[in-house]
């Protein structure tokens, strides 16, 4: 048999992250409790190193290796860079939070790095098998991270729900993949795509597609496969929520693109309808149910579900412009989600989680600067110009209108107007209600600085959105 030695250079970031994760895992054993910060610093250094490696490997070409099961294209490079940046910020945000709760342990960082590796594998996957392996690596790390807070009953329940539902979604995904493998005779996405295009009867392919979509929709948290999202976001400690609500969405977006566009591109009319249903339901249920929440983590979870609806709108239009808009939306959502849950971390302190909406009452009197920063984030999530969230929504709607679905754009706008209610309610609580506690608000300086940078980035990128948009368009070959 002929075997080609793979081009390991393309997978250098993956190899680097894996090597460092194993090194940190062993080094952590020999560290005393006081020098645990070394683990943290090394983890951050790993992310920086991977960022530089991926940046160095960036090219506009599309290269395959490892018997075509690994792909490096501009989309993969950009999404990987975004993942490193997002996880870097997550760890920066959560350092103090973890310390205060006795969760500042080596396993948290090691699992976080393995999760990053899983996301990288998913983003660069070019075969059904690699997509699945990356997804399992990511999911397993996340289940463990949710369960790590062992003395909390809510966290244990959240981890259990997440694990069982996640296992079911993986089973659905695998079943769908096995059907597609059975009909096309290949796991490699290029061959799958060629076989699908030349297929006479598409019944089995559509059958497989339905199961694939169930798995993907679960991982994205799209309605009606969203039941785990609020429970897990609520039950997990805020640092873990910050992790699972941001970077994995980028990986899930990549998985959606790889499966639907790279693999089953010829079935676009079929998956268009499925995505349409998922998107409308996510927009509707996400925005309406968020209004009824009193817990801010649950509210942000439902808000995340509605954002996923928007992201799907970009993909379902089926044009490169739409995919670029979807990718732009995913990156912008991650930036806003970091700010949203970062806000909860900023407000929390030892023994106080700050996860009720009431805790934000009268924040303006206690700290006008942070109230202003939070207002920026809420306006951005609601899609008010000039913040970045507005441009993300606009580009998606543009793609939808270009695909001759003006009614769908109208529905999306209607639901985001409904959704604006609960973002504005938080602003009302901060500015027009009296505070429940009068002590001055003293956040830790590092988190405060990071949060301010995050919120100002939402404004500044919103004022100059063209460069980020150009990166996304370039990644989709436009």
């Amino acid at each position, binding site marked *: 048999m002929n075997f080609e030695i793979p081009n390991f250079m393309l997978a250098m970031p993956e190899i680097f992250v894996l090597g460092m994760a194993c090194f940190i895992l062993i080094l952590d054993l020999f560290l005393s409790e006081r020098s645990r910060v070394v683990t943290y610093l090394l983890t951050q250094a790993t992310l920086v190193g991977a960022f530089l490696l991926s940046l160095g490997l960036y090219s506009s070409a599309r290269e395959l290796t490892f018997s075509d099961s690994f792909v490096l294209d501009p989309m993969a490079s950009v999404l990987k860079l975004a993942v490193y940046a997002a996880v870097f910020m997550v760890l920066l945000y959560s350092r103090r939070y973890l310390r205060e709760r006795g969760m500042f342990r080596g396993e948290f960082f090691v699992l976080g790095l393995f999760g990053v590796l899983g996301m990288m594998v998913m983003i660069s996957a070019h075969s059904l098998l*690699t997509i699945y392996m990356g997804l399992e690596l990511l999911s397993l790390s996340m289940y463990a991270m949710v369960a790590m807070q062992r003395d909390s009953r809510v966290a244990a329940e959240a981890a259990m729900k997440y694990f069982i539902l996640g296992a079911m979604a993986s089973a659905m995904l695998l079943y769908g993949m096995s059907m597609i493998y059975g009909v096309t005779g290949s796991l490699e996405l290029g061959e799958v795509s060629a076989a699908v295009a030349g297929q006479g009867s598409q019944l089995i392919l559509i059958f497989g597609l339905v199961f694939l979509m169930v798995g993907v929709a679960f991982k994205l948290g799209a309605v009606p496969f969203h039941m785990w999202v609020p429970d897990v976001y609520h039950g997990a400690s805020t640092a873990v929520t910050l992790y699972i609500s941001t970077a994995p969405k980028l990986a899930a977006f990549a998985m959606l693109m790889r499966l639907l566009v790279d693999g089953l591109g010829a079935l676009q009319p079929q998956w268009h309808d499925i995505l349409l249903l998922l998107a409308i339901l996510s927009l509707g249920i996400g925005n309406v149910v968020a209004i009824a929440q009193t817990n801010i983590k649950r509210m942000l979870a439902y808000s995340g579900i509605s954002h996923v609806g928007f992201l799907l709108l970009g993909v379902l239009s089926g044009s490169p412009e739409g995919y670029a808009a979807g990718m732009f939306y995913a990156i912008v959502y991650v930036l806003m989600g970091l700010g949203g849950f970062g806000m909860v971390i900023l407000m929390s302190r030892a023994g106080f989680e700050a996860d009720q909406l009431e805790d934000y009452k009268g924040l303006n009197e206690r700290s006008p600067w942070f109230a202003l920063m939070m207002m920026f984030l809420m306006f951005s999530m609601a899609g008010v110009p000039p913040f970045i969230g507005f441009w993300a929504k606009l580009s998606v709607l543009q793609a939808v209108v270009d695909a001759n679905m003006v009614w769908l754009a109208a529905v999306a706008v209607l639901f985001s107007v409904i959704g604006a209610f609960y973002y504005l309610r938080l602003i009302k609580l901060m500015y027009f209600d009296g505070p429940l506690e009068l002590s001055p608000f003293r956040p830790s300086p590092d988190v405060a600085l990071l949060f301010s940078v995050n919120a100002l980035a939402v404004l500044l990128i919103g004022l100059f959105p063209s460069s980020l948009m150009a990166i996304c368009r370039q990644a989709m070959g436009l």
Partner: protein
Amino acid sequence: MSFEQILFYLFSGVLVLSAGAVITVRNPVHAAMFLVLCFVTTSALWLLLEAEFLAITLVLVYVGAVMVLFLFVVMMLDINLARMREGFARYLPIGGIVAATAVGIMGLAVGRINFGLDVWPAPPARAADYSNTRELGEQLYTTYVYPFEIASVVLLVAIVAAIALTLRTRPGTRYQKIEEQVVVKKSDRLRVVQLESEGRK
């Protein structure tokens, strides 16, 4: 009907029945034993497909190792069956309708029309000296080396997660100090006492 077909239907029938029994029998130990039966019949089906290595691995790994552990755990846990069955009757109608519809549609899709022998003819049988294990090994370490490596990382994460979730260091836990045990000398533990022998009275 050929002999293989008879065997196939026999094993498939036992498989489906025992899978049903896994979730319906009252005793959890019986459920675990039915799961063992499921694995054994599945491996028989794989033998029919000439996938000998996979069939043997399934028996060795799942029946031999996983299910034994599973039985240990089931016997150690105090499972309240009455509570687990709560709401079974309440959810049965809606669950039954959903399950029946799904099975019906799936049966239509993967049934004889799309997967019958006339659509997908059976592959020709391999020669007697064909080594299934060798082919699998070659593929695993060449074409599929990348997913194979990731699978090893997944296992590593499973170990890390399992230890992180179960290892608890409590104050006052007693440990065995092996290095002290090894360097111990006779003089540390043993005191030879000279006793005057007493004469018979």
